[in-house]
Each structure stands twice: as structure tokens, then as C-alpha cells.
């Protein structure tokens, strides 16, 4: 292919790929930067002490995670599989999408997150980690 020109010097006919690699590396860097810029979160509203006491507690829905890992909505036992259906049943007809979550101290963080995740899937918008003392009357 290469034609001999002048004093035997080869004329290069290949495409110069160096700038392409340059561009690709820059793209790589851009993607590396933008990738972690989006965080996935689950919001948990923190009830202010005074606010928690003024809310009509008899209307609250409290999801409890017991010490043995079983679930209960307002003291009524619910299975892990039935949680989503039960929450839909409750919240589809409710105007305030408020759910308090109370977890036993011995349960794992991931279990609570799973419960919150399911609840969010059921259309519940706001979560409160029920303060132990404020939530007690609502659950009884």
C-alpha cells in the first residue's frame, strides 16, 4: 500500500488513532465523575418531640418490627409477604400517607429498610421513626 516517495520514506496511510484514544479517555473520566453523583435514598421523617405529642395518636398507623422479626400493623400481625397488600389496603383509601415505623433494637437496619421500601412501594409518602414513648399509646 505505502508508496515509496522520495528517499525511501514510507508514507503512512493508517488513521491516526491517538486523538480518538484521547477523546475516549476523557469520556471515561466524565462518566466516572457523573456516575456517583446520583444517590439513592429512602427518606425517613424525624418527628419533632412537640409535634409527635400534638398529633392525634389514635389515628396513627404504626408498623412494628418485633424482636423475633415478625411484623405487626397497629398490633395486628402481618406476614412479610402480606405486608405490601395490607399496606395497599390501608393506604389506598387514606388521605394522609403517614406511617410510623417502630423497630425492636435487636433487629437489623436492613430489615427496617426493607419494610420502609415495601411501604414506599405501597404509596406511603412520609415515614416517622416513632419515638418509643410517643408511639406506645397508639399501638395499644
Amino acid at each position, binding site marked *: 500500500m505505502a508508496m515509496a516517495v522520495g528517499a525511501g520514506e514510507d508514507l503512512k496511510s493508517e488513521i491516526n488513532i491517538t486523538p480518538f484514544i484521547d477523546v475516549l479517555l476523557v469520556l471515561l473520566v466524565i462518566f466516572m465523575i457523573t456516575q456517583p453523583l446520583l444517590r*439513592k*435514598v429512602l427518606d425517613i421523617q*424525624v418527628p419533632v418531640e412537640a409535634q409527635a405529642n400534638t398529633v392525634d395518636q389514635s389515628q396513627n398507623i404504626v408498623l412494628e418490627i418485633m424482636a423475633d422479626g415478625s411484623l405487626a400493623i397497629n398490633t395486628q400481625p402481618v406476614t412479610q409477604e402480606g405486608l405490601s397488600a395490607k399496606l395497599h389496603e390501608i393506604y389506598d383509601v387514606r388521605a394522609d400517607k403517614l406511617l410510623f415505623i417502630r423497630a425492636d433494637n435487636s433487629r437489623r*437496619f436492613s430489615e427496617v429498610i426493607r419494610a420502609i*421500601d415495601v411501604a*414506599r412501594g405501597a404509596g406511603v409518602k412520609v415515614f416517622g421513626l416513632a419515638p418509643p414513648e410517643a408511639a406506645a399509646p397508639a399501638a395499644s
Partner: protein
Amino acid sequence: MLVLLIIFMITAPLIASGFEAQMPQGINLIKAPEEEADIILGIDRMGNYFLNTAPVPKDEVQARLTAIYATRTSDKILYLKADQELKMERIQDAVSLARAAGVRVIAAVTEQRPGTEATVATAREGGN
């Protein structure tokens, strides 16, 4: 060369921070763009506290958070990066600290469960 330099500049702080935790996984997560002003409280598997990836002794966390949120008027969100294996006891401790410091929303940082898509809106709602 310059590109390599940039790559190392980006990865160096990520490696240097000693914070290690496995985030819990979820499906119906909210997308929250990272911002410079975000306050991140990390709790690793051993229960050590990290504030914006710098280790902080537990008894100083309260004072640090109070100082931060006292002057913050925009949003009182605390991003909580806690290991999924942690007991709720630890999380409740952190929540109590945060509440006392004036935090209104705790955003538990989670990871999308591989192969799943959120079935509800993923944008954060304003207001509450």
C-alpha cells in the same frame, strides 16, 4: 498523562477515606443528586461514626451536628450511610442524636437491588 492525573485525583480521596460499609438494598428508592452541602453521617460495621467520611468520636457527633444544623436554613436533611448489618439500637442512637441536633429528615442511603426498577415515583417531594 493529564488524563491519568485527573483519574488519580478523583480516586485518591475515595481510597483514602477509611469508611467502609455495605449499604442496604431497596427497590422503591428516591433519586437524590449529590450536592456539596450534603451532610453525610456514616456508621460502619463496627459502629464507628464518620462525618463526611472523616472519623469522629461518638461523643463529639452531637456537638458537630448541632453546630452544622444550627446555621443551616435550607434543608435539614442528614444522609445516613449505615451498614446493613447494624442493629437498630445503633441507628436509633444516631437518629436521637440527629433529632436533638435539629435534623428533620434522615435520608438512608441505599443501593438499588440489582435487576429491579422502582414502581413508584423516584423524585423527592418538596415540602415535607
